[in-house]
């Protein structure tokens, strides 16, 4: 594989995850915003899940790269 697809997937989800996570934290005090999502800070949780997923993909990609160069 010339391009390991896990790398861009990992990068994108890490980036999007961080964005939503931080946005969720900064808007935590806004009750109007989360009224429709049943008072759940859905930005925070979605961001967290994406960050974990993106991070895992990056770990896989980097490990594969390491074992290749060895």
């Amino acid at each position, binding site marked *: 594989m*010339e391009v390991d697809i896990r790398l861009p997937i990992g990068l994108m989800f890490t980036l999007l995850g961080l964005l*939503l996570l931080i946005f969720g934290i900064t808007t935590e005090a806004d009750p109007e*915003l989360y009224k429709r999502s*049943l008072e759940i800070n859905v930005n925070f949780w979605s961001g967290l899940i994406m960050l974990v997923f993106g991070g895992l993909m990056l770990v896989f990609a980097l490990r594969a790269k390491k074992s290749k160069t060895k």
Partner: protein
Amino acid sequence: MDISFSLGWVDYLIMIIYFVFVLGIGFALKRYMKSSADFLTGGKSIPAWITGLAFISTNLGALEVMGMAASGAKYGMITTHFYWIGAIPAMIFLGLFMMPFYYGSKARSVPEYLKMRFDEKTRGFNAVSFAIMTIFASGISMYALAMLMETLLGWNFTFSIFISALIVLVYTYLGGLKSAIYNEVLQFFLIVIGFLPLVFLGLISIGGWEGLTSQLAEVATSHGYAAGAYTETWSPVANSSDNPMGVDWFGIFMGLGFVLSFGYWCTNFLVVQRAMAAGSMSAARKTPLIGALPKMFIPFLVIVPGMIAMALTSDPDSGFALPIKGNSYDYDKVIPMMLGYYFPTGVLGLGLTALMASFMSGMAGNVTAFNTVWTYDIYQSYINPDKSDKHYLRVGQMATVFGILVSIGAAYMAALFNNVMDFLQLIFAFINAPLFATFLLGMFWRRTTGHGAFFGLLSGTAAAAIHHGLTQPYGAVTLIKGGWLGTVVHTYPSEMAQNFWTAIFAFFACLAMTIIISLLTKQNKTKDELKGLVYSLTPRIKDESKRWYQRPEFLAVIVGIIAVVLSIIFW
């Protein structure tokens, strides 16, 4: 209820990040596109987990997502028949029994396999009809997306068409099939993660699966069905009058589960191309099997939100109601309405980006299948053979541009004449319905001849058209729904039931005629030519995987068990 919503900067930023990454993948792959094979067949080097996810992602287009959610609202849980019986068995069959011939024959496309196995005219018929069909399919989905963006975000119709077409064009033009496949994997994860919060929030607000069942039981009994008609899968289909889809178990089993499903998953180059791009025979066979694992759970992502929307609509206190269109609900609005109802800014951008990702995965699939069939099966075969490979690489790239331009034309045509699109889809349904009979006989009965295959296919298409012309679904008012031959000999309880039976007739007409004509004509291929293309003349392949649990057969058993267990749980 207002369904237009305004986006914040975060929503736009999410969209832009996604656009940057899909385009970036295209640019990163650009320098590897050296031959027509790199561009059109992905260089046959891609691992199975990637082709497997691409296999289902390309089918998970925007029309599929919105259509399945709409069916979930309209028909309830029996919509899962399009997955557990209407996809999984066919995907297992493709992986275990058909991929050895597709992959082993070294054919670059499904029409090319037909040429090797049968003859030129069978290939030509399949190639031309497939090429036209894919272009119109991508045009129709582009139209649907642009309409959606117009109503939701107030985006200009033309702007939506051009921005979505341009992005797909850039990444498929630069990186060919490989870029489409890689992006499909990224898009698959985005679709799942983007819609998951919708399912969670919906289920929480309605009181979990229990709450959903009891709310939909009221809807079912108010329509005169048994309480579980919207939340069970097999018990409502004992009789066609027991469920809102108007189908019975036989129609589901034969029409959907056998003819339509095998016809789509096993012969449609759009999906088969993903498996053909795998790096080895073992990876090619595992492609549909790996795809089947997440495929079984997609109903929870797309059908359950539709059911929740129906339950909320039936509850006057919820504050949510599907809009009315004519004399029924506008079911196609389920996904956008639900996004607007539950998602605050932030995940709203994520959900809309997921919707766009699903549109792009479907469109890129169509475009990459089109340019391969155009270049190898039409251009190289009939228009300009014996040119250098560089020339065909160029033609493939041009076909990508051309295909997208024609799709844009089709999108505007869909906007202008709704009937033309319905008519075209009907014709394609007639052409597709008998296809599986041809492949089944071609792969497993060596006596099948070229004439048999070709005239069998035509008979199957004719049978589909005649059946459709003589029958009507209940309450039909236009001739596009059937009965255009003057007399109506049978009225089906629903359009779905009519579709299933049209397919059944087409399949058996094609099967019978192919056998009869094959027996009456001489085999046009020698034994040597058929080696690797027909079951009885192909040496059994030994899977190269070292351990038993890495073999396709083991994977197939696992997939089969999960599908059966799911069906029993939701019986």
